[in-house]
């Protein structure tokens, strides 16, 4: 029991990071009907920028995160701008285009920061909290809290603001959106920038938990995407639940199957998706597949 709970906690904290990544995927999909396969690579960039400014420039952790979010936001802006001619036209080509960007971003990360990784010290006191014999790292709690806050803000943005409603309308019907005066290109651009910002948030936060390396984002991206689909692609709460679920699945797979955790995780994911392609919270408001 103790072990199970401890594994669960470990899974949830890593799951919170997956959830942040998944939210980026889902937001971009919900507001422009696109899968951004470069999202994971943007996470890498975010992680490196944040850790660089935190460790080398000695900025406070929060400020380093802000810098990272601005930088990746710019990256997102560029990606959307280049691929704009394909929007609302060819879904699969756009998807491949984002893979192309992912390849470039990965290489750039290696060119700028080198192929070896770096460890990032935790920005909060390292001593874990002891709760009924369970050891909980304070930093994990911080990550969970930020993920929860990000979800709330994103939901509020989508449900309560004019811009948020308009961005969803674009994905549902871009012609009708144009007719009511929405600038579809600008809306997509904003979606991409926010998505990239979420990637930086995830990357920056995961730095002190894992080793920051050029391949980190790829792995996080795939798990995050899996989480987004598991939760129901396009749903923000679904992304949170799906991301946490993948994290927990990962943790238990690692506990029971050691090195084979990835194998088990993806086999289970494949099985779930085949049984329920729309995911747990699947609503399929956007259907372009």
């Amino acid at each position: 029991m103790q072990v199970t709970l401890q594994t669960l906690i470990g899974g949830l904290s890593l799951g919170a990071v997956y959830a942040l990544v998944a939210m980026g995927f889902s937001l971009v999909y919900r507001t422009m009907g696109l899968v951004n396969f470069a999202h994971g690579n943007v996470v890498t960039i975010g992680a490196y920028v944040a850790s660089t400014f935190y460790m080398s420039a000695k900025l406070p952790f929060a400020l380093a995160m802000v810098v990272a979010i601005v930088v990746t936001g710019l990256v997102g802006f560029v990606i959307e701008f280049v691929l704009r001619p394909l929007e609302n036209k060819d879904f699969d080509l756009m998807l491949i285009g984002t893979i192309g960007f992912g390849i470039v971003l990965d290489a750039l990360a290696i060119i700028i920061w080198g192929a070896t990784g770096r460890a990032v010290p935790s920005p909060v006191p390292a001593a874990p909290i002891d709760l009924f014999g369970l050891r909980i790292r304070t930093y994990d709690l911080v990550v969970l809290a930020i993920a929860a806050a990000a979800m709330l803000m994103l939901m509020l943005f989508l449900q309560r603001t004019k811009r948020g409603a308009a961005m969803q309308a674009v994905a549902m019907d871009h012609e009708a959106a144009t007719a009511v005066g929405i600038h579809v290109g600008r809306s997509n651009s904003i979606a991409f920038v926010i998505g990239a910002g979420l990637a930086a948030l995830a990357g920056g936060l995961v730095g002190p938990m894992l080793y920051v390396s050029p391949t980190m984002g790829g792995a996080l991206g795939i798990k995050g995407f899996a989480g987004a689909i598991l939760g129901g692609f396009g749903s923000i709460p679904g992304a949170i639940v799906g991301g946490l679920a993948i994290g927990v699945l990962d943790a238990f797979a690692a506990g029971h199957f050691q090195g084979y955790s990835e194998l088990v995780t993806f086999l289970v994911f494949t099985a779930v998706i085949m049984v329920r392609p729309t995911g747990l919270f699947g609503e399929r408001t956007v259907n372009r597949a």
Partner: protein
Amino acid sequence: MKRRLAVLAVAAVALWLLPYGLSSYAIHVVDVTLIFALLAIGMGLAMGVAGQVNLAQVAFFGVGAYTVAILTTHSGFGFWTAALLALLATAATGLFVGTPALRIQSHYLGIVTLGLALAFTNWVTNASISGGAEGINAIPVPQLPGVDLSSEYLFYYLELVVFAIALAAGLFVVRTPLGRRMRAMRDDPLAAGAVGVEVPMLRMTAFVLASVYGGTAGVLYAGLVRYVAPESFSIANMFLLLAMVIIGGRQSLFGCVAGAVMLSLLRELLVNYPTYAQVVYGSVVVLVVVFAPTGLAGLPARLRARFGRGSGARQELRPFEPYPAVTVEDSGDGPLLDIVGVGKQFKGLRALDGVSLSVRAGEIRGIVGPNGSGKTTLFNVVTGLYRATSGDIVFAGAKVTGARPYRLAQAGMARTFQNLRLFRALSVRENVLVALDRTRMHTIWQYLLWPVGVWRRDRALREEGEALLARFGLSDFAEARPGALPYGIQRRIEIARAMARHPRLLLLDEPAAGLNGEEVRQLAEIVRSIRDSGVTVVLIEHNMGLVMSLCERVTVLASGRIIADGTPAEVATAPQVIEAYLGDSMADTVEQVVIEEANR
């Protein structure tokens, strides 16, 4: 043809002589390039030809290489036995990875195949049988009497032969019925199902094909390098492979090969700066998808479209040659199509509500009703695109409720679509050929064991295709892409494609939409001739004149219910019909039309 043979001969000689000028390092590069080219062909078959997003090609590659490595070093098999078993293993892997394609497509399929590829690398990195992260070395040299395959120069010739066979086989598949069906499925899976293409089986076949090419490449890799380790099958290499296929042009196998050669050389050129090479090819992928989505292979066609002139020959739509009429004896065993109390519920919307109607063999039935009254939904339920929420469909005496579209097509139903669903990247001829082809998937063994049979059948199909195109007056447009043709011609192609099925029942969804008066007249003639040849016709139409003149019986739908059913004259004078569909002011006109028609 002669020119093509000459080019082929020159290429063969050049490839044969290639090793003579190369250093031992250069020949190694060439050997590896050929392996990547094989992988790219497999990927092109799945992604470009069949439209299945396959990001597990490196896993197929890995399964092939690792199976050889394990069987030769652990189990003591000879290289060739191990190679054969490795191909079987990859084919099985292909089946497994392809299974999700039955349920999901596009980006969902992308993440699942990518996940499975990761799962594979995860397994080989950890399992002791695969040597963990160190991999397996000392794979024995493949033995071939009289040839020392440990020499990379001689290994080149082995690869060259395998590559030539694999490329030829790939091209053969693409240009014969199997590949045509795959391309049709890629362009429009719904329409493909409606002309009898067994979409689920075909998707699996695409993955198996890709995996066999991957496995072959893996076997050659194991024989060449005689060492396997997880990093050769990493996701980075998967994306490199993807870049090759996209840059070369995924829909053309030659393009895939060209892409593989180009990127391999680029990688070699920048061998000391691998990350810069990565920046270059990643950027090229982005540029290609934005500016030249068909890749290198598509460039000639794009240039021709921009600068070239069309062929000088004047193209015209020729008159339709009527089918020979047959007298259909009323077999008396019930209606051909019987729709019994069918209901269809969408989220919050009752599209069909207890619709019952039966269609006699040999009749032309009209279905009319206001836009959105459920006519097309009814067609979709009958042809298996939608599953009825309640009720039953009986076709030719057999209950077919909920049957898959391709099954119904094979049972003798054919249809056209309201918004035209022609296969856009196929020529008009190929559109018809896909539908003419009545062979089932289980005859696919012929490709492996008796390709001559496939080839003969394809020739027979082509003859039949020419006859059909001629009958519909479409011969001049055989080579054209349907999208570039006027609307009226596209409509006629759709009817020709449906008739290529030799159906018993033809369902036409608004065949007159967008046609001018003369074209409508020709359409009426075509439909009558089709009926006279023994095919039962059901048509949805807005053009009341056409319905009134063509149909023996008319069924009127409104808000998902049948509100009238009878002869055109009866229906046109029924008050509920006038109210719902025609409006008061039009009623007298219809009567007048009916009278005029009767007097003709």
